[in-house]
C-alpha cells in the first residue's frame, strides 16, 4: 500500500485585490518523484510556491506535506517539516559569507533556544561549520566559503542557494526556475546534480521554462494557465495535449519548446 504523497495540494485558491491568481488547483507528488510545474508567464507558478511555503495563506483549499496538514502552519515552521525552496531571483544574504549563508538553513534541524545558542562561530572545527563546509565541497564551492556571497558570479550564487536549501535536509524541495540564466554547461551540471539529489530520495517540484531541462529531469508535468491546472501528465505526453498547445500557442518559443520536449 502506498504511503501518503510527499506533497499534495487540494483546491487551492488565492486572489489579490479581486484578481484571481490561483483557482481550484489540485495536484499531488509521490515520494521521490520529480514534478515540473510549467506554464506561461503569469500563470501563477511562483504564487503556488508561495502558498505552499506559507508566504501567503490560501483563500481556500488545503496543503498536505507527507499526509500532514500544513495549510495554516506558520511559514517559518514548514522548513522544519522538511519543505525547502530556492528562489527565482537569487536571495542570498549580502552581509554573510557563503559559508554563513549556507549555515542559516541548519537552524531548522536544531531549532529553539538551544539551537540558536550553538557556538558555531567560536571554533573553526564546530560540527555545523564542518558540515556546511563539506556540503560546499561536494558542490565544488569550498574555495568560496569565506567570500561575500554577493560578489560571486550568478551561476555560483545559484549553486550556493541550492546547497543552502539542501542543508535543511528537506524531503520536498521546491525549485523556482533553477536553470534561469545558466549557460548550457551549467544547465547540464544542474540537471546532473538534481538527478543525484532525487536519487537520494528527495522529492523535487521544479518551476521551469526550459523544456529541454524539464524533459531531462522530470517524470511528470503539471501545466498551469491563468491560475488553473490545464494538464497533469507524464512528461512525454504534454505535446499531445490540446489545451497545453493552446496555452503556449502564439508564442513561437513555446511551440518550439514544446516540440523539443
Amino acid at each position, binding site marked *: 500500500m502506498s504511503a501518503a504523497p510527499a506533497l499534495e495540494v487540494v483546491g487551492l485558491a488565492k486572489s489579490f485585490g479581486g484578481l484571481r491568481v490561483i483557482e481550484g488547483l489540485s495536484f499531488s507528488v509521490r515520494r521521490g518523484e520529480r514534478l515540473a510545474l510549467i506554464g506561461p508567464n503569469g500563470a501563477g507558478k511562483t504564487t503556488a510556491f508561495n502558498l505552499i*511555503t*506559507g*508566504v501567503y495563506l490560501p483563500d481556500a483549499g488545503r496543503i498536505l506535506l507527507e499526509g500532514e496538514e500544513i495549510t495554516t502552519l506558520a*511559514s*517559518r*515552521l*514548514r*522548513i*522544519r517539516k522538511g519543505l525547502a*525552496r530556492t*528562489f527565482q531571483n537569487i*536571495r542570498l*544574504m*549580502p*552581509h*554573510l*559569507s557563503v559559508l*554563513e*549563508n549556507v*549555515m*542559516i*538553513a*541548519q*537552524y*531548522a534541524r536544531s*531549532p529553539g533556544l538551544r*539551537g*540558536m*545558542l*550553538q*557556538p*558555531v*562561530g*567560536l571554533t573553526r572545527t564546530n560540527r*555545523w561549520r564542518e558540515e556546511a563546509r563539506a556540503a560546499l565541497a561536494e558542490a565544488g564551492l569550498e574555495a568560496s566559503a*569565506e567570500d*561575500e556571497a554577493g560578489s560571486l558570479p550568478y551561476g555560483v550564487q545559484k549553486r550556493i542557494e541550492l546547497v*543552502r536549501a539542501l542543508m*535543511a535536509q528537506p524531503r520536498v524541495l521546491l525549485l523556482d526556475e533553477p536553470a534561469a540564466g545558466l549557460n548550457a554547461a551549467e544547465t547540464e551540471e544542474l540537471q546532473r546534480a538534481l538527478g543525484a539529489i532525487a536519487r537520494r530520495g528527495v522529492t523535487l517540484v521544479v518551476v521551469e521554462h526550459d523544456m529541454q531541462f524539464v524533459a531531462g529531469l522530470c517524470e511528470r508535468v503539471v501545466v498551469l494557465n491563468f491560475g488553473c491546472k490545464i494538464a497533469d501528465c507524464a512528461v512525454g505526453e504534454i505535446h499531445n495535449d490540446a489545451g497545453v498547445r493552446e496555452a503556449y500557442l502564439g508564442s513561437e518559443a513555446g511551440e518550439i519548446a514544446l516540440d523539443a520536449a
Partner: protein
Amino acid sequence: MSGYLESLLVLLSINVILAYAAFLPMAAGQLNLGVAAFVAIGAYSGAYLSNAYGVHPVPAALAASAIAGGLGWIVAFPILRTRGIYLALATFALNQVVQGTILNLNVVGGASGYPVPAHIGFPVIAAFALIAVMLVFVLFHTRFGISVTAASDDERVADLMGLSVRGLQSAAFTGGAVLAGLAGALYAHHFNYIEVQNYGVLFSIYIVLYVLLGGTQTVYGPILGAAVFTLLPELLRGSAAWRYVIFALLIIAIMSLRPQGVVTGALLRRLLGWRRAAAGAA
C-alpha cells in the same frame, strides 16, 4: 590612578556598554532612537532602589537593568510591528514620552535632578563593562549572530529558512534595553547625580552615531566607536561643545567616505587572513 584618568576610564566603560546597547538592535536592522529612554529608566530605577530602599548599589544596578529589559520587552511587541522609518520614528517618540514621564515624577526629583549618594567605583564598573562585552561577543559567535544578520538582510527569506524573525528582533531589542539600563544605573551610582534633561533623543543620536562610526557589520566595531567618542576629545582639548563639533564633522566625513563604518566584515576577514598567514609562516 589619578582621578582624571579614572573618570575617563569610567566613561569609556559606560560608553562601551552603551555602544552595545545600541548595536544589538542595529545588528537586527532596527535604528533604535530610544536607547536614551532605557538608559534613563535604568538610571532612575537603580537610583530609586538605592535611595528609597537602601538596596546596595550593585544589586540595584542589576535590578535596574532587569527593569529596563522588562519594559523593553513589553514595548517591543507594538514597536516591532513597524519597520524602517516608522520604527525609527516610534523609538524616537518612545524616547520623548519616557523622558517626559520621568520629568513629571517628583518622587525622583522631576525637573530638578536626582542625587544618588550610594557609590560604585571604577573597578566594579570596568568589570561590568568587561563582562557585558564578553557576553555580547560570545552571543554573536553563536548561531544568534548570523541569524540576526540574516533577519536584517532579508526578512522574508530568513523566515522561510526557519528563523523566527520576530523572536530575533525582540531578543535584540530587549538585550539592548538591558545593557542600556545597566549603563544608566552604573552612571547614576558613580557620578552620583542624574538629570532627566540629559536623556533626550539627542543622547540616543550620539550613541547611534558613534556605533555607526565604528561599524555595525561586526561585533568589534562598537568598541572602536565608543573609544573614539570618549578618547578623541581628550586628545583635542577644549570645551565639551567643541568636542561635539569635531565629532559631528568626523561623522559627516566617515559617512561620505566609508559609510559602512571603520570595522567591516571585509576588513576583519583580511586582518584574520594576515594573522593566519603569519601563524602559518611562523
